């Protein structure tokens, strides 16, 4: 269900916790699974549940509680822009507008070519460096002027 490489990574996480608390690794395991699969399908959550000896619905609870898990397929690149008050004061709404215009989608939508999903985010702990854009949950880009946004999109399109 998951690749041996993914399982190896999950095992590494499991080892961080006392043996009887494998469940502690569920967040990391879901991250690993999402990295491999792009999103968390029912079968994927079920597999993780089995792997960690958890009730599937308990895994579902976790996957739906933390908002960086994709419970539905997303675009190849999920761009999340923080629009919280401090970021907003520093121009992140303009940055979001710029992205919307460039991509032709609104928050919560995916471009027709399936490449980009644009999301509105809550505080990412990088307020002073606003505007911040998170790419696929893991790569944070800060001080995003319109020029830097354009460069980012170009680079992602090229990949």
């Amino acid at each position, binding site marked *: 269900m998951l690749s041996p490489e993914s399982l190896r990574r999950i095992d590494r996480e499991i080892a961080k916790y006392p043996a009887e608390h494998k469940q502690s690794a569920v967040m990391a395991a879901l991250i690993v699974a999402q990295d491999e699969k792009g999103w968390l399908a029912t079968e994927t959550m079920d597999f993780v549940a089995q792997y960690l000896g958890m009730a*599937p*619905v308990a895994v*579902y609870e976790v996957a739906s509680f933390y908002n960086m898990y994709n419970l539905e397929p997303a675009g190849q690149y999920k761009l999340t822009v923080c629009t919280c008050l401090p970021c907003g004061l520093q121009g992140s709404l303009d940055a979001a507008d710029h992205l919307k215009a460039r991509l032709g989608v609104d928050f919560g939508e995916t471009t027709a070519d399936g490449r980009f999903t644009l999301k509105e985010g809550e505080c990412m702990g990088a307020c002073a460096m606003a505007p911040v854009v998170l790419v696929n949950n893991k790569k944070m880009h800060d001080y995003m002027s319109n020029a830097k946004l354009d460069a980012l999109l170009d680079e992602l399109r090229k990949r």
Partner: protein
Amino acid sequence: MSELNLEIDGRAVAVPPGATVMDAAVKLGIYVPHFCYHRKLSIAANCRMCLVEVERAPKPLPACATPATDGMKVRTNSAGAKSAQQGVMEFLLINHPLDCPICDQGGECQLQDLAVGYGKSASRFEEDKRVVPAKDIGPLVAAEEMSRCIQCTRCVRFGQEIAGVMELGMIHRGEHAEIVAFVGRTVDSELSGNMIDLCPVGALTSKPFRFAARTWELARRKSISPHCGLGSNLVVQVKQNRVKRVLPLENEAVNECWLSDKDRYSYEALESGERLTRPMLKDHGQWREVDWPQALERVAAELTKAAGSVGILATPHSTLEELYLAGRLAQALGGSADFRLRQSDFSGDAKRGGIPWLGMPVANLDGLDRVLVVGSFLRKDHPLLAQRLRQAAKRGCRVNVLHSVDDDWLMPIANRKIVPPSELLEALRGVNGTPIGESLRSGRNVAVLLGNFAQQHPQAAQLQAAAQALGYPIGFLGEAANSVGGYLAGLPVGGNAASALGHKALVLLNAEPELDCADPQTAGQALERAQFVVALGAFRPARDGADVLLPIAPFAETAGTFVSTEGRIQSFHPAVRPAGDARPAWKVLRVLGNLAGVAGFDYETLEQVREACLRGKDLAALLSNRIDLAASPAAPAPQGLQRIAEVPIHFADALVRRAPSLQKTRDAQPPRAWMNARLMQQLGVSAGQPVLIRQGSGEARLAAALDDRLPEGCVRVPAAHASTAGLGAMFGTLGVQAVAVGKAA
């Protein structure tokens, strides 16, 4: 440690350390409004309805979670407390539909009740209300109206803590939080219906009962469950002479506040289309309805004719009074009567010290610190006894298992030994040198419990002796509502369940032999061989083996007494009148006795029968699990594949077999032939593929299924099901053969 003294609403109370403010209030009889708190569940403190004022605390505190402290002064209805409670009530209502008149919970809704006391008449919330999609979580529990959910998580905690399996969860967060089962799953726990009782609002309701009646239209009658040996206390709710719903009657010593789904939903069978409502006679192979006198005269005549050879087979779900009269009848007419239809070893009958029973009060199960359960499908055979052991396990009791299957009991198992049925006895005898023995030795409050499988085992008496030899208190997990009552009624009489089959005339009381007997094949042959067969039952039998059918009143339609596995004598009244011309079986038996000229059968009332049965008997003194039996050498290993037969939970008796909603559950799925991977490979079959099972002269076609925890050389083929009714004994060997796909017969 000494008690804590505190004051609630000006009244002094003392509670032990560790008690909460809620505990103290309960002790004083002071009601603190609450939703999430439930005395049997862990404390979540999430509804915030129980906020009270505590002197010197800067903010209101939840009574359910706040530890009582010495000298504490609490106000549950001061202005501050009231305002906090009203604030919470307002929050609960802003997103809750206010259409109580069309809610199934209307009239028995905690939210509705409390809203009257703590709510305001007009809502200040003018935005749109939250809409939460309905869910299909199975045939028993309706989750149609999830917008009504107040997120108290009682249902979730019930699964985690009581049922032992988390089938519901609360996904998403904040206002979007909703109760769901895992995508596409149903709630399959055998205790699932309790979530309905726990749900304080109309979010989780009973699917079969939904909109069948309003709560205030229902008359409430107490009753006792006719199913497993626990004797759960019931409230049977009735409208216009129809049973609409069954709820638990709280009895801390028996079922606490719980019911198994079987106890809760079997009432549906009362309205089954298979009900037998008129006496019927077979004339020249043709059934015809007759009136009672005609039927009874015919039966009495036949029984008199067969005098000296009358066999009576009653299920242990029959009442004490029925069993007593059955025994007397057999005695008077000459013959035998027994209720232990699924047992096959009666060699202990003369060697027993008394009536086999649980060996302790049910409530003491919670306090065991070591237990060995031998030969039991515990969870499915005794759902609430399993629950008790689950709670014990949570408190540190080490549960050990010796059995032929390794089903998940949803509790931590300290040690397990899984052996073929033929090796069960040897394994039990050898327990002391094993980790199980070590575990038992380290306990202070230890018991060895023998389950249905052990009681049905061909070496049941030796198993009892071997259990006894371990030196710990032993107990029997009684199979049915009257497994103790049957003995108390004086059965067996003149033989046993096996020998009774040999008689010329056979009387079946509640029994469907192909499903209720240890060996359907022998039972079937006996029926064919018999000169006369009369069946007293509530349903038309699936198999046509009788000459006369007498409709008798089942559970809820009749009065009687069950003696539970802990020796609790519980009598009950009918909740509704019998369907059609059905009559209480004790009356039928009495009339038969009269017609057959049996002396002393002139009981006017059920109480007289009961009195006659119990007169001069001291049950406590009669209960004993002692057995005086020399150990016999172990039986030689059988040649061939061994059958492991369980009685699936929703097929155990005539009533549940006909309860439609129970029959839709996962537990009621058709039996399969389970085997381990090695055997599958040997036989060249794969999971899902049909196999032909042969046993004796019979066969059954089942789908093969993988259970890798089964011991070598064994096939698990359930009994008590139409699809396996053609097979032979529950214990024995059988042949399995792959069926070429496409060559379906």
